[in-house]
């Protein structure tokens, strides 16, 4: 797991503390019971703040899973800010 992925896992853990690190990599808005609209908005805010980016919210469907977030970060080449 690279640093970018590890940081994304921490973001998910903060919003979904009931999940294990393994469960997070497979997490989606349909498989995680606590992933409602509030959790979704919170997750967006946490990820934006952690990576110092503004997520394009015109297509929110891409941010409905851990993999969706990770793919976005990879595509926009958001690296280590520190």
């Amino acid at each position: 797991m690279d640093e970018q992925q590890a940081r994304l896992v921490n973001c998910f853990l903060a919003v979904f503390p009931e999940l294990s690190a393994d469960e997070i990599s497979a997490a989606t808005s349909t498989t995680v019971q606590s992933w409602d609209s509030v959790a979704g908005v919170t997750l967006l805010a946490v990820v934006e703040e952690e990576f110092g980016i503004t997520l394009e919210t015109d297509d929110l469907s891409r941010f409905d899973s851990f993999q969706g977030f990770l793919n976005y970060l990879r595509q926009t080449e958001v690296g280590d800010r520190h």
Partner: protein
Amino acid sequence: MKLIEALNLTRQMQSRKGETLRCFLASGFNALHLKTFLAAELCLIFADRKIELSDGLYGDLLGNVDRLAKSDCEVGIVLIEWPDLDPRLGIRSTARWGAGELGDILATARTRVQQLQQAIEEAGQRASMAVCLPTLPLPPFAVAPSWQASSFEMELHALVHSLSSAIAQGHQVRILNAQRLDLDLPLKDRHDIESEALSGFPYRLSHASALAALLARVAHRPAPKKGLITDLDETVWSGILGEDGVDGVSWDLEHHSQMHAFYQRFLGALMSEGVMVAIASKNDPVLVERAFGRDDLAVSAADIFPMEANWKPKSQSIARILDAWNIDADAVVFVDDSPLELAEVRAAHPGIECLQFPTKSDAAIYDFVLKLRDLFGKSAVSEEDSIRNESIRRSRSNGPARSGFGIEELLDQAEAEVSFNFSKMPVDQRAFDLVNKTNQFNLNGTRYMESDWRGLLEDPSSFLTVASYRDKFGPLGKIAVLAGMTNGRTLKIDTWVMSCRALSRQIEFKCLRELAARFDFDEIEFVYQQTERNGPMREFLSEILTVSPSPGCAISREDLEARLESVMKPQEVSNG
């Protein structure tokens, strides 16, 4: 605080065992991340309690304040934004606005303000309340361009201010200071238009975090400190009283020391609010009394009590002050420019908050006073506050000092280093200046012309010792000079001066120990002469000789070594 930190904090708080603090956040917008930040900040402040933070319904601020009043919460937090006064003042409304609607918006806002005032006052009878007035900029509804204040906007602001004045009369209601929020986060960095449109949460995360931190402090109501003990030199005034003299210390524009007057004025303000202010200074008490007799002081000496001016460790002065005040150390702040003095007091009185007075920057002094205001601030000054100071002054206790602390341990912890240089040539200008400038720790007050000083040093039987000091807080440089003659088996010291800043670091004892190590003598003779100002030298020699010093007083090597042994531990020094 970052949102991820706030989330983790609130999760960890769930496992706390303490009593639950029930809080209610009443807002008209979706509180979302603000609620998270606020819960986390309350967790930090109320560290021994579980936090339960409820909120109400979206879009119903007035109803939420009623819900707050009917709940069993201890703490109520009310957040008002412009759309709460009229929904047309927000971006989520689709209602029209225009010049014709402005009057109606104002009328609606007036009615809503009256309703909110009543609801908040009622809630304030049941819970401790923190109220925050609009923090976001008004939308561009006014007719005037943005750089011009329109009558519409001014009327809205006046309505809000009238609300704050009315509800602030209640003892239980406290208003968040908008100026403080402005200092922490500028207006332009607060509004998140996209977030408000998407979710109804109008704040940027930075604003939500800053606002939550301040709201938690308003809700907390920490007990203000009760007493401030301050140093004098380079604190109440610029300069060293013992070196610069009564007229040489300053606090004015001419000497670029005006911010010391600002500090004096603040001390005066604190005393008028019932805060006890005392002095703990290593200084000649006679000089201090004369300095406080200056008619240009910005603070009245009559209100300062007690005034401890002596050459003993400050922890002992502070112990006497605490006894006189009869308050606990944790209600007291000690201010000094010297990190070593602060460390000594902190070690002896761990409950006291010790703060370093900034000396290099006017802006830093201003910020320092702001910090003191936060420590001593209270909602109102009571009559009891003023009475307390006067009654303490009248019933002053002269009991024994409450506690002391080993200076040796402190110097060890400060990594104090004293170095000695015995070179006589070339003539050291700093040493010469010290001899001619020092008054208080001075063996006899003799002043030298440069030619006389050179002549003394050129004598083959003369010696010169220049001591330098540094510790982990920084160097003091060259701070002591001893000079004299070797006369058979007698070492005769006819010049000995030390800077006031170096007192209470045992350097004077180290000087004698160094001479004992360097020279082979049976006796040291001191060419002592009492002067008007060399009290500290007199006290030191009394301690070494165990009798009051007189001209030509002396001590044998055996007695000197025994005396030093009883006072000091062995320590490494470096010689040059």
